[in-house]
């Protein structure tokens, strides 16, 4: 098993009540696996797990990305200085 710290910002942090959560995942887990586990633990986080935007080590990644120990994972809420 590998341990990942998942950083939460803005609306996600307010929903969960923490800025970082620790997640233990089997070796070779993907971002998608992590999201499934996270949504199970924090159902409020999203009604659409497939649409969550994730960054690993400060870069946006897609959900097939394979995690390695030491990766910094972040859940990126909708970025919006405002679309108007």
């Amino acid at each position, binding site marked *: 098993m590998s341990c990942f710290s998942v950083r939460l910002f803005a609306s996600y942090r307010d929903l969960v009540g923490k800025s970082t959560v620790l997640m233990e995942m089997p070796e070779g887990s993907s971002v998608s696996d992590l999201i499934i586990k996270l949504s199970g633990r924090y159902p409020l986080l999203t009604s659409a797990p497939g649409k969550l935007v994730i960054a690993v080590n400060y870069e946006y990644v897609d959900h097939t990305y394979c995690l390695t120990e030491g990766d910094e994972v972040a859940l990126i809420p909708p*970025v919006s200085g*405002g679309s108007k």
Partner: protein
Amino acid sequence: MIEITPDKIDHDRVISCVRRDSNGAVAVFLGTTRNVTEGRKVLHLEYEAYRPMADNKLSEVVLEIRQRWSVENIAIVHRIGKLEIGEASLIVAVSTPHRKDAFLACQYAVDRIKETVPIWKKEYFEDGEVWVGSEFSSTHS
């Protein structure tokens, strides 16, 4: 010049930082905090950034611009923390030899910043607060 800062934006300093005698244009975009959203009175705002990712993404926007237009200098300063109404939250200043490139590059920068840079805005109302773009809101009980 790229900055994410809790300090007030000094637009004169930013403009003089990009202006050059060899250029005929400086286009400046100043994003300011608004006192109303969908009819609700906004009291103040708060901006939060994920650093250093936000800094990296701002640098990428600058690179994209340099690949597209003949830009001499570009400065982007984004403010974070608590802002009062009417304050500047973002300034983009672009200097170019001719005005057309300055306008195009400046607009592109602002659009890309709002798409890719992990900075979030929270609006505080009399009866609650909302992270803009979020599907959730909270109301004071």
